[in-house]
């Protein structure tokens, strides 16, 4: 299912079309949260995929440190970029939802704080990359930072919300912790997750192949 095959892209286009329609017309409104909860079909998959992207970046960085090949660096920075995009979108959709149900765009509750920190950390990753001129050094230092950055993720995503849970019960946990989602909602949610994963894959491949092509153009002697 490489970039040269086109069928899955059109499939994705259709799939997401159906999912969006289904999210609004097929799935019932959530109990207690109403119509606004529909945003979760998009907000949650994007957040998960951002984390996956950062994981991919960390793994590629680790591989680069073991064997300094250019392709690992391309994977690391491309994944981080897509991850940042998805994280920003997740934050924005989350903020919109927060406005709807808690009447304020930003509350600094544990989860909001964590995603904010994550955005800063990965934005700093790109600040670091642009501050180093030598390619080898850039790739190496960025790889180290990517690993440091990803280590903070379990702290931010799991530990901090858990620890501060007991102090300030986080309203966000309860709706998300609902394991018993209506079956139609579950269908749409899983379908959305699948679609977004495919979308993520497409964006990542495009990014990587573009970087590779640019590399060949810049160094025609390779």
């Amino acid at each position, binding site marked *: 299912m490489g*970039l*040269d095959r086109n069928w899955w*892209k059109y499939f*994705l*286009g259709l799939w*997401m*079309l159906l999912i*969006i*329609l289904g*999210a*609004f*017309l097929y799935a019932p409104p959530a109990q207690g949260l109403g*119509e606004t909860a529909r945003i979760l079909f998009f907000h949650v998959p994007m957040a998960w995929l951002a984390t996956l992207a950062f994981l991919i970046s960390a793994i590629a960085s680790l591989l680069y440190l073991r064997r300094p090949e250019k392709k690992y660096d391309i994977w690391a920075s491309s994944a981080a970029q897509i991850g940042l995009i998805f994280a920003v979108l997740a934050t924005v959709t989350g903020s919109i939802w927060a406005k709807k149900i808690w009447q304020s765009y930003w509350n600094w509750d544990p989860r909001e704080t964590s995603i904010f920190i994550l955005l800063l950390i990965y934005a700093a990753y790109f600040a670091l990359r642009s501050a180093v001129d030598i390619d080898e050094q850039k790739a190496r230092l960025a790889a180290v930072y990517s690993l440091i950055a990803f280590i903070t993720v379990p702290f931010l995503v799991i530990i901090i919300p858990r620890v501060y849970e007991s102090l300030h019960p986080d309203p966000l946990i309860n709706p998300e912790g609902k394991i018993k989602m209506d079956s139609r909602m579950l269908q749409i949610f899983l379908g959305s997750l699948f679609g977004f994963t495919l979308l993520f894959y*497409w*964006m990542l491949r*495009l990014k990587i*192949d*573009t970087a590779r*092509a640019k590399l*060949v*153009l810049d160094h*025609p002697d390779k």
Partner: protein
Amino acid sequence: MSDIYVVLLVCLLIWGGIFFYLLHLDKSLKKIKQKLEFKEDFSKPGR
């Protein structure tokens, strides 16, 4: 409750925009790759 249909329409438009933009990028990339392979064929030694 016609609001929900407005949101639905906006989502569909956003998706449409994203999808066709990605398709456009995909096609441009394909063209660039073809050009690169074409150039490579000419720069190969022993031709």
